[in-house]
């Protein structure tokens, strides 16, 4: 429902304002539908009463995203991809972050394979209060032996609760994998021009989502999708091929953009599915591992920005995963969430009248970074947030949006003087220049803190505790 207005939705609601959905009015429900806080099924009269059938059909059509949502896996870690409605995040938001699958190949020794699976399963890193994780395991049929592939799938199922992707062009392999893992709703990779009949049959029989693969050829891909649909396959993922840096990489990126534009702006149903990429191809050149991992990160980052909803990777090195996970965290941030937090006094942990008072700006990211660093260090303190019009410390200093008089105002308005007995203020290292100004205007003693907020806990430990 790319860029549908609440009014357009409203036209297809009963207009009873019955509040059965939990909203105050049908108009409010229309807005909630657009923001995906509600589902159309939440409108009980619409679903219940025969006379609204026409409205219901029209509404379903309106609220169904142009890119189908596909669910892989089951349970808590099931992964939802696609479901996007816009080309550009500022037009609404992107909904389902790109899923990152890590490969395991079936020719690995059993214990190594189990170890790798477990490692993928438990991988997590904390950033700005969010736990960043990997989303699935791609089991590759490298050995060519269906029995061995089956063993690898068993190992993956037993050692993780992550969604699986079964990777082989041979329907026999895929069938073995599906028999084992069907309870986990794995993604089948892949139907191609050559095997589409057999793979479509497997997908329908096991009700599993399936990848349509047609490297370098959008037309062929759309034909493949049409074929899968005609066989009754509903959940499809599009693979138009991935290449190491070079001209083919460039055109594969453009193919991804074209697919998404066809789906969202041209209403082409055959292109209305999630898109996948395989940055793992960086390992096909025979480069040394660090170089291949870096190239993999670069390909993955670029594809993530070009509408890839699922990526298959090989490297588990943190130096290459961290930039990618961070980029994903950034791009899938909801742009409707304000860039600023309220400028006021925040309590972190359980501060008392002797706890330190730290200062930062009201740029949301600055605030969350500082707050999560302080929380991680288990420091009980007050965090005084100054209104810098949403600028981080450095630009606020450069643009004179963080000044002594603003700090004075913040201190007075926050009531911090009633909360603590002392009059000591810890300011960011990058704001050192205005420490004299603050002291003159407020009478508080200024302590210049670290430049990077990750050093705050150590700073409090060494400087504050010795002074207090």
């Amino acid at each position, binding site marked *: 429902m790319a860029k549908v207005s609440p009014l357009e939705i409203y036209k297809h609601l009963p207009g009873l304002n019955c509040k059965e959905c939990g909203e105050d009015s049908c108009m409010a429900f229309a807005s909630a539908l657009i923001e995906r806080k509600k589902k159309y099924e939440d409108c009980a009269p619409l679903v219940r009463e025969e006379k609204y059938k026409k409205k219901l059909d029209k509404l379903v059509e309106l609220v169904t995203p142009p890119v189908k949502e596909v669910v892989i896996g089951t349970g808590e870690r099931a992964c939802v991809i696609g479901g996007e409605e816009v080309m550009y995040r500022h037009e609404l938001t992107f909904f389902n972050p790109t899923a990152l699958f890590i490969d395991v190949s079936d020719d690995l020794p059993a214990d190594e394979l189990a170890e790798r699976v477990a490692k993928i399963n438990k991988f997590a890193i904390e950033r700005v209060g969010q736990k960043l994780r990997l989303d699935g395991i791609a089991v590759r049929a490298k050995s060519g032996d269906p029995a061995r592939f089956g063993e690898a799938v068993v190992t993956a199922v037993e050692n993780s609760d992550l969604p699986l992707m079964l990777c082989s062009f041979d329907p026999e392999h895929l069938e073995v994998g599906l028999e084992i893992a069907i309870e986990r709703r794995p993604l089948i990779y892949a139907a191609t021009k050559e095997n589409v009949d057999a793979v479509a049959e497997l997908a329908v029989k096991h009700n599993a989502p399936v990848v349509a693969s047609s490297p370098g050829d959008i037309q062929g891909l759309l034909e493949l999708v049409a074929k899968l649909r005609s066989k009754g396959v509903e959940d499809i993922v599009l693979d138009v091929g991935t290449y190491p*840096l070079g001209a083919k990489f460039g055109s594969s990126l*453009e193919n991804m953009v*074209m697919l998404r534009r066809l789906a969202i702006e041209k209403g082409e149903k*055959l292109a209305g599915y999630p898109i996948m990429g395989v940055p793992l*191809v960086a390992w096909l050149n025979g480069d040394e591992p660090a170089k291949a991992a870096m190239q993999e990160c*670069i390909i993955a980052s*670029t594809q993530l920005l070009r509408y890839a909803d699922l990526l298959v990777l090989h490297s588990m090195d943190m*130096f290459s995963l961290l930039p990618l996970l961070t980029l994903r965290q950034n791009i899938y941030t909801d742009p409707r969430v304000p860039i600023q937090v309220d400028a006021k006094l925040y309590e972190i942990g359980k501060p008392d009248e002797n706890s330190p008072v730290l200062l930062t700006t009201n740029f949301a990211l600055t605030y969350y970074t500082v707050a999560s660093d302080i929380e991680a260090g288990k420091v009980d303190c007050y965090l005084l947030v100054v209104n810098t019009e949403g600028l981080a410390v450095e630009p606020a200093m450069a643009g004179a949006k963080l000044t002594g008089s603003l700090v004075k105002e913040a201190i007075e308005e926050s009531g911090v003087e009633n909360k603590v007995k002392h009059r000591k203020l810890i300011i960011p290292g990058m704001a050192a220049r205005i420490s004299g100004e603050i002291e003159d205007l407020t009478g508080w003693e200024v302590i210049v803190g670290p430049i990077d907020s990750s050093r705050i806990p150590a700073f409090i430990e060494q400087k504050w505790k010795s002074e207090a």
Partner: protein
Amino acid sequence: MKLNLEDIIKSLVDVESIELENVELDVEELVIQAKQAMLMPILQQLQPQAAATLEAKPEQKLEALPEITFEKPVKEYRGQVEEITLGATRSEGGSRSKVIKIGGQRTLYHFEGGWVNKPVVSFDVFDIPQPQFPKALREAWGDFWDSPAEWAREAVKRGADLVTIHLVSTDPKVKDTPISEAAKTVEEVLQAVDVPIVIGGSGNPEKDPALFEKVAAVAENERCLLASANLDLDHKRIVDAAVKYNHNVLSWVSLDINDQKTLNKLLLEEGLPRERLVQDPTTAALGYGLEYTYTMIERIKINALKGEKELAFPVSCGVTNAWAAREAWMNVAEWGPREYRGPLWETVNALAVMIAGADIMMMLHPSAVQAIKAIIDSIFGDYQGVEIKYENWLKV
């Protein structure tokens, strides 16, 4: 018989097969030089047919796929991004070996056919040593930073399309270097390199207008980019200097698209010709607000092509800000080796703004610059890369 190899290759492309009869090649080494793109179809035919893909079982008859007509989804756009020329050659009164053109897009995407100029990379050079740099950058530039001219020369060797000389030491809070000395630095850099240059000020709103007036005069007719004018200083003086001495102006705001429109409009009203304006929305670091920059660039480019003239200018990004992220420089064992992590952080930051629509990326780490240029050349089809067979990812 004299063989013209190019003709042979051409004929190979056009026909199914070619046989050479009664020909003896009496050479020690035969080098066939031809564009790879021309040879690829032939090389592909020489490879055994799709051995790695699944062979259809002989008893299975494949049903034909339904036929689909596919057309590239290209769009019509009303607007066009202004094309800006950086640098001037001797014939134009400057001393650069060539000029660099940026912007000029008539379409949002390269595949729509309206792109003439590639995004370019500028290396940052500073007028004083930068011992506070993260380790990876100290290692890259520490041997050169005693002399801005040396630093600039090395930057060009390492692939810079442009060089930005940042006159940071002129800031009264840094070293308060006199303006006359800063002007000398600019002259030295202009002599040391023959690429177009960007001149960065002190960041001090009181000093910058006077600084730009002076450096604009010593660099007269070199068509530099004066970086930058912002809403907090007397931008009229910078515009006047740019017009008088023949330079471009960078219009810099803090992540606010309305501010960008306002400042661009003011600069134009003050007499800056449209083909002299480049804009900088501020580049937030990966992990620290990059999405704001990403979205602002996308909005600028989309609105420009819709016909919004106040925004229809090329975009420059200070990607170097990537190094402000702790993940780029801090030594944390859990995050893996920082000698890889840092340059990768800058690379991902650069590719994000480039994908969003940036025309100039100001950068610092040589391997990040190399990577971003490879991506740009991939998109523009100027770098063939290593040929792989995609399906083999299952077998690697």
